[in-house]
């Protein structure tokens, strides 16, 4: 056994900074994925056939291919095809957001369909327009039921975010590799950022539980 954590001490600020870098794009990707996922879910349950078809095809493609492939395509193919020199941050947000929206849309679709049909009828009978009904009556109830599933998706996204180290985005994972190369020792920095990932996921889990408890107040 030859473990020496004292060697990584000078690198700790550098690695801690990675939390912020990772959280930054994870946060943007989650929001982006959630909004797009909601829209796709509404397409799926709506009555407009081409939109339904589009949302289903979209989901099928993004769930049916590896995330790392999607990330690579966005990072490498966009500059090649358009000449636009896409930044790692933007590629990461796009890849993770687009990918996540496919999963989120399925979660939300199931959540909407699980809301009692009587709720729709009650709102319709009161003359509430469809859009308003979705926003005020159906989605809040759907979200409450699917919160655990959504939280799961966000946690997965946070962990999978380590994939962006492959496009040289200086996230938490990438920083561990940089430190490892500098020190010629990999185990300590990897273990250290492992702990940081775990703490981030725990933070998300606790946040989810708090939100859930707040929503359950009305029961």
């Amino acid at each position, binding site marked *: 056994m030859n473990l020496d954590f004292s060697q990584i001490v000078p690198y700790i600020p550098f690695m801690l900074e990675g939390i912020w870098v990772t959280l930054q794009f994870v946060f943007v990707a989650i929001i982006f994925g959630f909004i797009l996922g909601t829209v796709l879910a509404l397409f799926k349950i709506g009555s407009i056939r081409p939109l339904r078809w589009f949302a289903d095809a979209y989901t099928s493609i993004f769930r049916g291919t590896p995330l790392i492939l999607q990330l690579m395509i966005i990072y490498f193919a966009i500059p090649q095809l358009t000449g636009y020199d896409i930044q790692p941050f933007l590629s990461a947000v796009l890849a993770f957001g687009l990918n996540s929206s496919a999963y989120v849309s399925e979660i939300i679709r199931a959540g909407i369909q699980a809301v009692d049909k009587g709720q729709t*009828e*009650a709102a319709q*009978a*009161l*003359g*509430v*327009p469809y859009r308003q009904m979705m926003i*005020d009556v159906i989605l809040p*109830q759907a979200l409450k039921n699917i919160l655990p599933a959504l939280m799961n998706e966000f946690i997965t996204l946070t962990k999978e975010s380590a994939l962006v180290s492959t496009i040289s985005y200086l996230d938490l994972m990438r920083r561990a590799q940089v430190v490892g190369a500098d020190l010629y020792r990999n185990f300590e920095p990897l273990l250290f950022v492992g702990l940081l990932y775990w703490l981030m996921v725990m933070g998300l889990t606790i946040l989810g539980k708090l939100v859930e408890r707040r929503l359950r107040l*009305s029961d």
Partner: protein
Amino acid sequence: MIKVENLTKKFGENEVLSNISTEIKKGEVVSIIGPSGSGKSTFLRCINLLEKPTEGTILVDEENLTDPKTNILKVREKIGMVFQHFHLFPHLNVLDNLTYAPMKVKHLSKDQAEEKARGLLAKVGLTEKETAYPSSLSGGQKQRVAIARALAMEPDLMLFDEPTSALDPEMVKEVLDVMKDLAHSGMTMAVVTHEMGFAREVADRVLFLDHGVLVEEGEPNSFFTAPKTNRAADFLEKIL
């Protein structure tokens, strides 16, 4: 107020309502009775277009509901509906259940809507439940809130689909009492019910449906004591 002409409704090949014509006048209370599956709910739901009629016309205040140009939302604003299973909004408290549609649909201010809602809650005897959530209410209380919610839109017509069928027996009366008050205040009402007492006492007219056909309609006393058709007589014999 409402004129139904040759209304037919099919679900696929299954003809659930056959060529029904009738009229409901302003201030009239009509009870719709008939065996299970005879099409009572479907008839009621056609009146506010929760079901789309296959054929025939429905006129509400001279406005033809089956005309594609008619604004269904506008028509529904004027027609309140009370369901067997209440369908209160579970994520909103009682007061918000009552103010939601008036604020969002009729664009009342919060103050106006709340004032109106409080008046209605007093009327159905639930003033102290203002901040309660539906899940904490008894069935009878839920149904009274549901009635108040529909009334908050100030409808010209109220539809009731078996409003007491899901209630424990001891709660039926509190709901029927609210409905009686409403009837006496001059509200136009169409009530699908198995409460023959209510039909007899409160209704101005009874419609008897069987297998989607309007078999008989008439004034309750003569209907219940001397039905004109065998089918109505058979039905009454079974349930009374």
